[in-house]
Structure formats: structure tokens, C-alpha cells
């Protein structure tokens, strides 16, 4: 935080970029372009995380989110190759109906409530800026928080439980994407082991 005005400038520019890219994701017709725009919106998000003294979270945003999860989307889009507009897998919004209009109006009212200056000022008055530790948000402090005293630390337990969630996700994804006819023809154990290796590499 050497130059305060530079921080404000970077924040304004990157939030503008995030909003434009996210609007592009929901408005553009080609799914491949939508995925690439979403990746483009993650990079200024990582910049804002770094401004918020969360450098490790910014690195995770680029490595895991933009690098791994979005690549999964890109692979699937290339695999099923949907047509850019019209027809099957194509785009364009739903035809205007009563429900959609209602939902759009609801979102608009929600946004208007936040833009009311009174609400905005109230949020400003509650802000308390605490002094930061010099190593705040670093990898050392973060791992110290998660893995200190692992036998009694609830964060360690829930962090390890995440691996079970991912394991369940892998099993569910495998089960969905297994072909029924193939599993009847082949011996079941071979099918599982072969597809299991492929799935692990992807994730």
C-alpha cells in the first residue's frame, strides 16, 4: 500500500474489467467465447484479492479456478461442440414469459435497494480498519492457522474432509459417465479401473 491513489485506480479498473467480462459471459452467444471471457474476468479478480492482502488466494484463483476448473469446461464444450446460435445447444435467451420478467424485475429491485444512498452510507459507517499483521494472508500464516495443533483444530478436520467430498465427486462423475452397454460387455472391474485412471488425470 505505498501509493493510495494507485490502489484506488487499480481497484476501479479491475472491477470495471470484471463487470464487463461477466456481462459478456451472460450475453455472448458462443459458449467457447463465454468460457474465455470468464477466464478473463478471473484475472482482475485475482488482482483485487492481492489488493485485499490475500496473495495466496489470488494465486489459487488463477491456478485452480482459471487453470483447472475452466479447462474442464473448455474440454466439455469442445467435446460436445454445441452450435453457436439457434438449434441444439444454441443460445439466445428464453422466450419472454411472465416468470422471466418477474425474475428480472426482482433482481432490478434488489439492485436499487443497494443503490439507495442511505444503505450505502450505513455500510460506510460500520467499516473498521484494523491494523494488519505484516504476514497477513501469506502461505505461512494460512498454514499455521489451518494445521496448528491438528488433533484439536476443527479447521484441520474440515480441510481433510474436503478430500472426501472430492472423492465422492470423482465417484459420482465416474458413475454418470460410464456407458451402460460397455459395462455389460466388458468385465466390470476392468471398466472401472480403466475409466478411473482417465478420470483421475482429468481432475
Amino acid at each position: 500500500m505505498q501509493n493510495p491513489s494507485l490502489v484506488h485506480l487499480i481497484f476501479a479498473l479491475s472491477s470495471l474489467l470484471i463487470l464487463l467480462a461477466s456481462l459478456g459471459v451472460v450475453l455472448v452467444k458462443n459458449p467457447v467465447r463465454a468460457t474465455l471471457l470468464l477466464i478473463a474476468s478471473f484475472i482482475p479478480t485475482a488482482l483485487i484479492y492481492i489488493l485485499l492482502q490475500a496473495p495466496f488466494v489470488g494465486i489459487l484463483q488463477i491456478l485452480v479456478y482459471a487453470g483447472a476448473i475452466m479447462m474442464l469446461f473448455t474440454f466439455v464444450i469442445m467435446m460436445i461442440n454445441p452450435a453457436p446460435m439457434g438449434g441444439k445447444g444454441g443460445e439466445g435467451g428464453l422466450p419472454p414469459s411472465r416468470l422471466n420478467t418477474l425474475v428480472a424485475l426482482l433482481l432490478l429491485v434488489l439492485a436499487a435497494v443497494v443503490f439507495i444512498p442511505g444503505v450505502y452510507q450505513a455500510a460506510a459507517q460500520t467499516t473498521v480498519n484494523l491494523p494488519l499483521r505484516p504476514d497477513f494472508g501469506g502461505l505461512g500464516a494460512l498454514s499455521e492457522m489451518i494445521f496448528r495443533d491438528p488433533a484439536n483444530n476443527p479447521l484441520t478436520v474440515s480441510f481433510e474432509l474436503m478430500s472426501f467430498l472430492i472423492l465422492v465427486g470423482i465417484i459420482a462423475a465416474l458413475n454418470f459417465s460410464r456407458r451402460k452397454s460397455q459395462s455389460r460387455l466388458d468385465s466390470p472391474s476392468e471398466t472401472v479401473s480403466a475409466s478411473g485412471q482417465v478420470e483421475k488425470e482429468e481432475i
Partner: protein
Amino acid sequence: MELFNLQNVLLLSLLLVLIGSYGIFLRRSLILVLLSVEIALNGVNLSLIGFNYFRWSDVETSHYLYMLSIGVAAVEAAIGLSMIIVLFRNYNDVTRDRVANLREIP
């Protein structure tokens, strides 16, 4: 001009959630619905990190919550995309109209 404060970070995250829910409600392709879910999740993560920096800057609890959140997002993307692949394989169609009428004649 003071732009980098809690209310602007919250405003940005709210706008991201609104853009994401617009996409969730109004896009037809299921892949783009999943992408809109990712936008909304991104907004929620931004508000987590912003609250931790501006209000509770003594422990990094929200950084930990962010890690849990991207873990859940990865699992959700993997399962959702494999369901989309199954739909595409069986019906050659990944729009939400197809999912809404799964019971009827393919």
C-alpha cells in the same frame, strides 16, 4: 477519491451475483447456466475476502472459507459437466428445455 473500501467491494460482489443469477435464469444452454453459477460464486468469494480485510483482519478465516468454496465449486463443476455429457449422449441436446421434459418422449 476513495474507491477501495468495503462498500465498493460489496457492491462489486452484489453485481456479480446479480449478473450470475441473470444468466442462471435466462440462459438456455446448461453449460452457460453452469458458467453463470461460477460467476455468482466468484462474487460471493469476493465478499468473503473483502469482509476479512476490512472488518476482521486479525485471522484469515475467510481465506480458508475461500479454499473450501473452490473445492465445492470444482466438485459441482465436475458432476454438472458429467451430467451434461450424459444428457448429450442420450438426447444430443443440452438445453434446459430438454431437462424440463425428461419424462416425455425423447
